[in-house]
């Protein structure tokens, strides 16, 4: 079942067309990777799906409903979670507060919360998530003081706290060290294995893309150049010429 779909969308800034007539589908439980050279429009496409950018033409549908005019917060509430290329946290708040805000976002704040305390179930859920992702020991540390790997972990944990149905991950391993990257890869693989999420990943690490993806979409100069299974895409001559420098031996 298709959960998120972009139908012939176009996005431009000041006369410059960044995305032109791009269409892609994301099915329930499916893992799709969006690849392409720098400047191809990958993040722009993700921004359009997440509601950070408005499309000029075409439509975006979530569970069959048009969400093109929905704001980013409404899409998040509907179940579209978005991570950013640069880590997006609340830097001066503690790790615990960051998670708590994400957990709280899913629940509605009511009048008694105006002068009240955080609900116990929110606190308990926060502690559980901290424990699960292995950040309990830095619960009281300001997010800005965490290592880059921990910041990435925290961001992903915040995203999962929203209990989304779709995950839009923008280069989740960007800036990570050689030792931190496998940890993130393992986390994402675990998310895929649950089958709960439809995941759209933007990533430059092609081996990671090959390992995880059910389908790959190749974006080049704002156009969808190709899409299909990893082997179909990697054996596409146009793709290898445009993105992989004419040669890729990782798949047969």
């Amino acid at each position, binding site marked *: 079942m298709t959960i998120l779909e972009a139908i012939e969308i176009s996005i431009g800034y000041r006369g410059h067309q960044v995305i032109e007539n791009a269409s892609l589908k994301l099915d329930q439980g499916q893992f799709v990777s969006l690849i392409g050279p720098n400047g191809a429009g990958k993040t722009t496409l993700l921004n359009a799906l997440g509601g950070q950018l408005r499309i000029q033409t075409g439509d975006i549908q979530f569970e069959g409903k048009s969400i093109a005019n929905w704001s980013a*917060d409404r899409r998040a509430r509907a179940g579209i*979670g978005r991570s950013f290329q640069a880590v997006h*946290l*609340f830097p001066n*708040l503690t790790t615990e507060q960051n998670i708590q*805000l994400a957990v709280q976002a899913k629940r509605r704040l009511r009048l008694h919360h*105006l*002068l*009240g305390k955080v609900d116990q179930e929110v606190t308990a859920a926060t502690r559980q998530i901290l424990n699960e992702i292995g950040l309990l020991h830095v619960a009281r540390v300001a997010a800005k003081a965490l290592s880059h790997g921990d910041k990435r972990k925290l961001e992903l944990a915040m995203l999962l706290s*929203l209990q989304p149905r779709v995950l839009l991950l923008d280069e989740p391993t960007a800036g990570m060290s050689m030792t931190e990257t496998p940890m993130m890869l393992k986390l994402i693989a675990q998310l895929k294995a649950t089958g709960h999420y439809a995941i759209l990943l933007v990533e430059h690490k092609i081996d990671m893309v090959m390992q995880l993806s059910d389908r790959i979409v190749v974006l080049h100069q704002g156009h969808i150049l190709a899409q299909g299974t990893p082997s179909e895409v990697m054996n596409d001559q146009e793709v290898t010429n445009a993105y992989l420098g004419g040669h890729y031996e990782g798949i047969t």
Partner: protein
Amino acid sequence: MRPVRLAWLLLSTLFLMGFPFVFGSGGGTSLLEQIFVFGAFAMSYDLLIGYTGIVSFGHAMFFGTGAYAVAIVLSKTGGSTVGLLLGFLIAMTISILLSLVVAFLSLRVRHTYFAMVTLAVGQVFFVLAGSQPLRPLTNANDGISVLTPVWLNSNLAVYYFILIFLAIVTLFLHRFIHSPFGEVLRALRENESRAKALGYRIFHYKTLAFLLSGLIATLAGGMYVVVESFVSTSVYDIGSVSLQVVLMTIVGGVGTLYGGLIGAGIILWLQNELANLAGSYPVFNHAEIAFGVLYVLVVRFLPNGILGTLKGRKGRWRWTSQTFKKSQT
């Protein structure tokens, strides 16, 4: 509550409760009344600038509206208790409507434009209060002298009335900033787009902060009339009210809540001392020069304000002592 904090709270409560008995109801007590009023006003402003990250240059529009609403109703009702209550009720209603209109017009735009819109709206109120067509209501530039209810005729009664008001405002703001709502406001200040990506309705939360901040500023304005028994267009003045409250908050410490109270204390005490000196040295007639210097010094040497700096040092001390203890074990 930690024992040290509890001790501080008890000591300061005892000090403030006993002040008029020890020092009489003269200058010092009058100054404290003003500090309480402006302290509440500055704390309301800190909710906006320090906890939500919204800068307003027209916060006097709320303070002035509170002052005028209470003064007008009191003067029309001959200083009755019902008049006082009605005045505050009308002031609060106007404040809510005003904050909703200003929020609708400007909170969706960038923060700079919001600051400019508040400046413009604040100036409109200043002009309206002094305008001749509204003289029957506001007495134009002559201002309104007010009769307060009989039970507020003694200085002591006014002092405790304002002290109770300050205590309620402080308690309310303390609870609010530590509530889940307060946490969301801090999140907005930290990273608005992340808060949005988590699903928070940014506009709603900003409006709520603006509304509450405006409401407290309005009540502070009403209390100002109770203290002064007089109101004039100066309550809408940008320089002496809107910018002064910015200065109070910055001097005390943005995002510390109680810093506003400390800032109000310092600024009003300084203003009082300079006014006394001006009798002998006319140069001190221009208090704003001293405030300008103070602002530069604080921004340069205490960028987190007085309370912010103290809290930072305490945090560093705690971290160092904990690290030392760990290294010993």
